[in-house]
């Protein structure tokens, strides 16, 4: 078995309440898990377990990762006044909007603005929304749809190689996960309803999405998941698995040194991912976070087959939303992305006479069918926010401790326009972003600025967002609290 690890890093002086569980040499406090393992291993540790209820705070209103949390140095990661960490969510749909029916009426905060026709499905959350309109992507529109996707999500021009294209750098979810994903069992979650998502670690390195709700459930809440308050069963195989990963990492390191520059980078990415899994396996040996809202969700069905050639988008999106919400509530991850559809998706929406992408180009006039599809997407966005807002956390909800970016890769699908990009931010990121606001950009500011604000609100101390024509150093001051 692997060596026992102390639960956390350097310690400040203990509060008297937890004095009993300090190690006898005074070096570091023990976690409940460590104590259990010690007892099972037959070691004579002459101290008692704290009563289980001591793991919760008085009212379930404070973030209490474990009873020793008050002893620990403040996390580098962003957290609000009530101690809950700031989480990030991305809700993406393909093929854009009809900008004239998308942009809200009026500007400013509160009653000064009203939701537009296409944003109407989000009415229940108006007070938790910030709509950013009038921005444009700075990047060249070199590949229809994909340039917009790379532009909005990474702030960089698409990276081209002949007929193939990739992102020039990480997408926003991975930029945030690089900081916010360090402490959780999963660095980030990529859940898709349709398509393969657009979560990139960097060029040619895309994160595979989970499309099956059943498999997503098994990964998140199957073996390896422990409910708050439950005693995890010590599992000696976890240590052995880490030993294997350590050997794999050594193999990667030895191979890497023999390769050319581009292959070295690829092996480095592999190596980083191996080390990352090693660390995440170590989390299995920790106590589960004690979060009042964390409950085991209902297990989804094995499959949700298409009905008459039309995928069950609403049902699948809803189930994925609930899994994501509970994964966040249980602190299994702090970064989630939800890929409803993808750019150029030709999925048959309910009531549509043709595929979505084809309609955006072929439907004449005011494009009533495209409009109906955008409304369906926004209804599913509302369902998504509802799932997040249904989780009580402290005096508010999970959504209040999040920044959820709702966006698409173009504005008007028909012309692949990158002007008037659709950007909605839900949740205030624990008060760091303004809500109930319509910010209308004058003169078409770079959309990257809105994403810069989100990245910073989520606790990433980044100097810039994007690169080349998409680069920004500044966020949008008007939306920052």
């Amino acid at each position, binding site marked *: 078995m692997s060596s026992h690890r102390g639960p956390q890093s350097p310690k400040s002086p203990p509060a008297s309440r937890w004095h009993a569980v300090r190690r006898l040499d005074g070096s570091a406090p023990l976690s409940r898990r460590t104590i259990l393992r010690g007892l099972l291993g037959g070691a004579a540790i002459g101290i008692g377990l704290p009563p289980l209820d001591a793991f919760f705070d008085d009212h379930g209103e404070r973030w209490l990762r474990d009873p020793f949390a008050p002893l620990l140095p403040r996390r580098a990661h962003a957290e609000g006044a009530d101690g809950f960490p700031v989480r990030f969510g991305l809700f993406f749909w393909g093929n854009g909007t009809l900008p004239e029916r998308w942009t809200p009426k009026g500007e400013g905060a509160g009653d000064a603005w009203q939701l537009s026709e296409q944003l109407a499905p989000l009415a229940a959350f108006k007070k938790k929304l910030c709509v950013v309109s009038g921005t444009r992507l700075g990047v060249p529109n070199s590949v229809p749809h994909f340039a917009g996707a790379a532009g909005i999500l990474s702030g960089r021009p698409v990276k081209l190689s002949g007929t193939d294209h990739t992102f020039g750098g990480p997408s926003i979810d991975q930029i945030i996960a690089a900081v916010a994903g360090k402490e959780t069992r999963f660095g980030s979650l990529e859940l898709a309803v349709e398509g393969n998502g657009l979560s990139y670690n960097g060029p040619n390195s895309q994160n595979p999405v989970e499309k099956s709700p059943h498999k997503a459930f098994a990964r998140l809440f199957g073996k390896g998941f422990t409910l708050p308050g439950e005693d995890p069963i010590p599992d000696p195989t976890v240590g052995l698995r880490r030993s294997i990963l350590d050997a794999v990492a050594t193999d990667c390191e030895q191979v890497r040194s*023999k390769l050319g520059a581009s292959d070295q980078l690829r092996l480095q*990415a592999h190596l980083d991912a191996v080390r990352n899994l090693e660390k995440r396996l170590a989390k299995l040996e920790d106590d589960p976070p004690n979060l009042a809202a964390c409950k085991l969700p209902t297990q989804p069905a094995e499959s949700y087959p298409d009905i*008459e*050639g039309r995928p069950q988008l609403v049902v699948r999106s809803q189930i994925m939303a609930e899994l994501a919400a509970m994964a966040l509530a249980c602190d299994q991850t702090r970064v989630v992305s939800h890929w409803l559809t993808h750019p150029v998706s030709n999925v048959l929406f309910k009531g549509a006479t043709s595929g979505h992408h084809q309609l955006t180009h072929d439907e004449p006039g005011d494009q009533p069918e495209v409009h109906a599809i955008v409304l369906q997407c926004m209804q599913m966005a509302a369902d998504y926010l509802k799932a997040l807002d249904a989780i009580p956390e402290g005096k508010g909800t999970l959504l209040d401790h999040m920044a959820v970016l709702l966006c698409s890769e173009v504005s008007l699908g028909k012309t692949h326009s990158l002007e008037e990009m659709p950007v909605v931010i839900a949740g205030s990121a624990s008060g760091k972003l303004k809500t109930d606001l319509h910010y209308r950009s004058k003169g078409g500011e770079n959309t990257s600025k809105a994403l810069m604000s989100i990245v910073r609100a989520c606790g990433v101390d980044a100097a810039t967002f994007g690169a080349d024509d998409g680069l920004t150093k500044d966020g949008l001051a008007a939306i920052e609290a």
Partner: protein
Amino acid sequence: MMGATRERARWGKGATRTAPVALWCRRWIGTLAAALCAAAAGCDAPEEPKAYAALAPPVAAWPRLTREQYKAVVTDVFGDDLALPSQLEPDASIDGMFAVGAAIATVSNRGVELYEDGARGIARQIVEKPGRLGDLLPCGLGSRDACLQALVDRYAPRLWRRPASAEERTRVIAIGQKAGTALGTDADAMEYALAALLQSPHLLYRAEIGEPDPEAKGGLRLTAYELAGKLALVLGGGAPDAELVARAADGTLNDPKVLRLEAERLLKLPTARRAVRAFASQWLHLDGLDGLNKDPTIFKHFSTDLGAAAREETLRLVEWLVFEQDADMRDLITTRTTFVDRRLAAIYDVPAAVEDGFGQVTLPASGVRRGLLGHVSFLASRSHPVSSSATLRGVFIREVLLCEQVPLPPSDLNTSIPEASSTAPTLKERLIAHMLEPSCNGCHSYTDPPGFGLENFDGIGRYRSHDNGALIDPSGTIDGVNFKNAVELSAAIADNPNYRKCLVEKVWAFANNRRPGKGTHGTLERLEDRFGDEGMRLRALLLDVVTDPSFRRLAVAKAAP
């Protein structure tokens, strides 16, 4: 039988290589230039195949095994009754080819998790079935340590495609010992040692470290083990067998004569079919068929598993042409033979040959359905959910079958096509109206005409004589050759010199995990000439490609190890 009526053009040295419309001018450089060039058929062809030369990718020499290759290596070594992981890191694709994408593919966080999970599942199954590890479990070599040592020595040469070094062996044995101690049994020790072998980058990637090449001063060639591993993947799609490992171990594989004999032997094994199917699947973009999506209210023959059946049809035809007929590959485009199950038979309106599964049928001579361009795998996937698409079909013909690059549409263009009207009721007429727009003409006059020849097949691939009540006119011109229907279109494509050239490029790219690029022009030309001389037979081409010096030489000279 097949294609016997068609006169075969011979492709000797000096055959014309001129593309009918030069590639360089098709790149989007403004509507005027494109329109002018399209009008002036016969712009000079550039010397290099520009579609590739301009795009030579960064050469990487450490391709990741595709998902199919990973699974095949495991089943080749441990038995095909293993339940394999249903999810693995997705393959990267370049021009639709995973073998080429493999050279840029990385492994993500999720990918490592999937490989780890997969390896544990496989290792567990291996130790759970009595006898799978022979005399190693129960351990018949006296000690756990001896059995662990034998495990590494026995399996690394096939799993990793080279023996483990002393240090690597020690590392794996240590894991086995640790597991045996912690969990108690020899089976546990073996299971964790196997899981370590199965997650190693030495399995997940194909090695190209190389050694000094005595034939090319200053250059590097693959080591004998690396060559064996590459050969096994290209011609067998999986792990090297014992004989190939032996040729690597004694170093004789470096002898070109031995290499040829081994390649000939491998092409006779059943695993060669797996490799050819993998090639065909990537070349013809058959992987995407799983996501086939059609409006069933319009297409009564659609069901969610139609895509998989359509892929199987095309793969069976390729397999039959290559292994049963050793046929000219132009037959793939022109043959009346195909393999259908009952659903495909219904779409093609022919009697199914067998009750269950796939049976061989001959399409009626009176019809217009011929070869690949008559398959549902092509017709349905290159269509919209509710209608056919002459453009998507034309782009496939241009890019996949003829290796010509179609520029992307300008991103700010109004892409609507006119509504059906009394003057333009059919898709073809609507698209022709679209082509009158100067900004559209440059590309669509190039992509759509071959698609028009297939308008007799609807969005799922059913024959139709009328579109929207009007008679379809499937005639047209491709690269100066007139055709009056799909039959003649197929013949024109099969005889297009770019079809032959393109197939050689695709096979070379598949075998070498990279696109042809700078410095490979001469190689490709040489292979192409031989391919023509040998009657355009795929197995002969594969043999030529793997015995060509470009197969065993390293793409980029690195510092010698």
